[in-house]
């Protein structure tokens, strides 16, 4: 413990190259301490570098990488999740104009089978005389996920950090979860997915959901692999209009990369809500109503034609 403390102090003193990276999931006692990059383990190998003042300082090698090299997450770790986190997403409907950059980035990074999407953008109109709007959906990562309830083999599971993931190495392809999900989030790999061979050969990782496999279910995973590296999910960083906000409920903060808000204030000020609250699924995705819009609904129609083919 002592040693741990001292290394942490040194770390704070020597500069935070590794700032921003989420603590890995090893079970360190002080994982929740402020500035908690405490999971970076000193290698003992010192490197000499120049300080701002022009002095030569010795630093442990481990702190020098912008993203600390975390060991690949094992299946059992991926099933538990990142300790102390509770991921949350806020989708601001007033910013969406159906550009589908989110979808594009997601499909590209997860090698989703062409023609299928994990992020979907719906043209919504609740009633005849109400205003139409664009509604992107991801997996809702429900706190009481109906899909997880029905899975016969623990192939889809709810983690500590709130994320619902799929283990494609275990999924038997019964598709009960697809029937159970009221948000139509899940897609099935009806054939062997059309992905590059070197991707398909990789061992499957629950946290990156890559590679997708024939006869198994796939869906949005909230990109925990990115979060572990201190980066935002692909859809969040891909949206040029900043529609998606992502963060940790336990920090009460969400960000879309450029704007950062206190989550509780944002939801309170803009009257955020969740989809199909009456079903009791308790989603982790919140929506801000499409008021004072950045774009008229019609501007999103241009993108509708491109995939009619």
């Amino acid at each position, binding site marked *: 413990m002592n040693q741990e403390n001292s290394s942490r102090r040194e770390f704070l003193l020597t500069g935070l190259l590794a700032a921003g990276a989420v603590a890995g999931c090893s079970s360190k006692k002080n994982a929740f301490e402020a500035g908690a990059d405490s999971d970076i383990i000193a290698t003992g190998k010192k490197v000499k570098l120049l300080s701002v003042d022009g002095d030569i300082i010795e630093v442990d090698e481990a702190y020098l990488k912008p993203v600390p090299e975390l060991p690949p997450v094992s299946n059992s770790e991926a099933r538990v999740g990142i300790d102390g986190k509770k991921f949350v997403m806020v989708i601001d409907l007033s910013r969406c104009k159906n550009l589908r950059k989110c979808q594009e980035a997601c499909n590209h990074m997860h090698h989703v089978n062409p023609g299928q999407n994990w992020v979907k953008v719906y043209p*919504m109109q609740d009633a005849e005389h109400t205003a139409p709007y664009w509604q992107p959906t991801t997996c809702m990562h429900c706190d009481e996920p*109906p899909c997880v309830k029905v899975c*016969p083999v623990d192939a889809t599971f709810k983690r500590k950090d709130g994320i619902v993931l799929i283990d494609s190495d275990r999924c038997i392809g*019964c598709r009960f979860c*697809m029937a159970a999900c009221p948000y139509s989030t899940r897609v099935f*790999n009806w054939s062997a997915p059309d992905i590059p061979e070197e991707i398909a050969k990789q061992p499957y990782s629950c946290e990156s959901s890559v590679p997708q496999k024939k006869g198994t279910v796939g869906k949005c995973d909230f990109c925990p692999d990115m979060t572990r590296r201190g980066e935002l999910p692909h859809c969040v960083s891909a949206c040029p209009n900043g529609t998606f906000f992502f963060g940790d409920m336990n920090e009460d903060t969400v960000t879309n990369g450029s704007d950062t808000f206190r989550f509780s204030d944002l939801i309170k000020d803009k009257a955020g809500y969740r989809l199909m609250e009456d079903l009791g699924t308790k989603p982790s995705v919140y929506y801000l109503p499409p008021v004072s819009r950045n774009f008229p609904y019609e501007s999103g129609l241009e993108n509708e034609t491109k995939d009619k083919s």
Partner: protein
Amino acid sequence: MENSYSASEEKIIQDLFPQKFNRKGILWVIGLSLVCLIGLFAYYRQLRYGLVVTAMRDYASWGIYISNFVFFVAISLVGSLITAVFRLAHVEWSTPLTRISEMIAVAAILFASIIIIVDMGSPERFYNLFLYGRVQSPIIWDVIVISTYFVISILLLYYPLLPDIKILLQFKEKNGSRLNKFYSFIGSFWKGTKEQNRLSRNALHVLSVTIIPVAFCIHTVTSWLFATTYRPGWDSTNFGAYFISGAFLVGAGSVIVAMYILRNAYSLEHYITRGHFEKMGRIVVLLALLYLYFNVNEYLVPAFKMKKSEDAHLTGLFAGEFAPLFWFAILVGMILPILILIFRRGRRPLPAFIAGIMVVIGAWFKRYLIVTPTLLHPFLPMHNVPENYRHYFPTWEEWSIAIASLAGCMLVITILCRIFPIVPIQETLTEHHHQAILTEQNHEIAK
């Protein structure tokens, strides 16, 4: 027994002894086998290319495999109806029908489990159900309850067979050496002693009591595969009872069909009598009315409210895309059979047989209508998906596999009929004996 057919014991044994296939029978077996082979080929293609060979897609993610599964589970319930319920209620006329219904039950439950594996996207991981099974999942409940029901059905088929095996073994020259070996293997220990009879009788009683709750479980759990979701058309507290009433109906209908075919094929007119058709006809009417009642509950109540989520689904059934099939299933599966069987003339063998076929066909499409239209009406609109995601019409692979499973089921029943007596010999003899004593007594009283 009401048929006053008096024959010698030898005649009865000869009538009921399993017969070799005649030419029609051989053609029937070859035909069914061919259909099964086509189905196997289609399944090979499905294994190779994935479920993409089916018409199922992300919205209609369950198709005729699942509806076929529900159909098989439904049919298998007949075993508990005819054998157990009637046995407990001392309905003696049902004796000649017990064996047929148990055979149907065993074959149907076997193919229910086969077709559910066919529906799996990764069947090679079937063992995961045992390695990682989660008791929270209704699928695991289904796995448990189906295997339980399978074992009970086998036992219920096996126990009453034992005395018959003894009789079969008395005519070794008729059987051929392989069948004799098989008979000896499964039943040479039956001597028909008092103690053996007592044990067997007790066992049958226990089985008859046990199978009823298990049968209710199997179909209720199957209905819960749907009812535990939020989807319009499935989100119903009525579903368990609705499914069970439908299952009893299709089971009874299929027994009438089997009765008619086997009666004609094996000339069993003296054992499966007009009286049986008369009584089974009445039962089908009762069950069809019951099922109709549940249908009214299932559709009228939500239609009265027309919640937004149910609207598209219900109008699709009543007047939209699925309307022809929906009204076909209601009309042919329930109303017409009632209209036929409610009249005495309609309960003669041929019309009853036709009504039975209607019930079975109507029931098959009814299961399809329970599964697919709901999936095509999700909460969030179908948007930005390929055109073939919006509709569902089974591909030839799906049809062949589904039909092959039906053919396979019939093939198993046919083979069971070849090996075992269709009408229990020993029980017929016993009742014949009782009858004779009764008539003698009557004569004496008359004197």
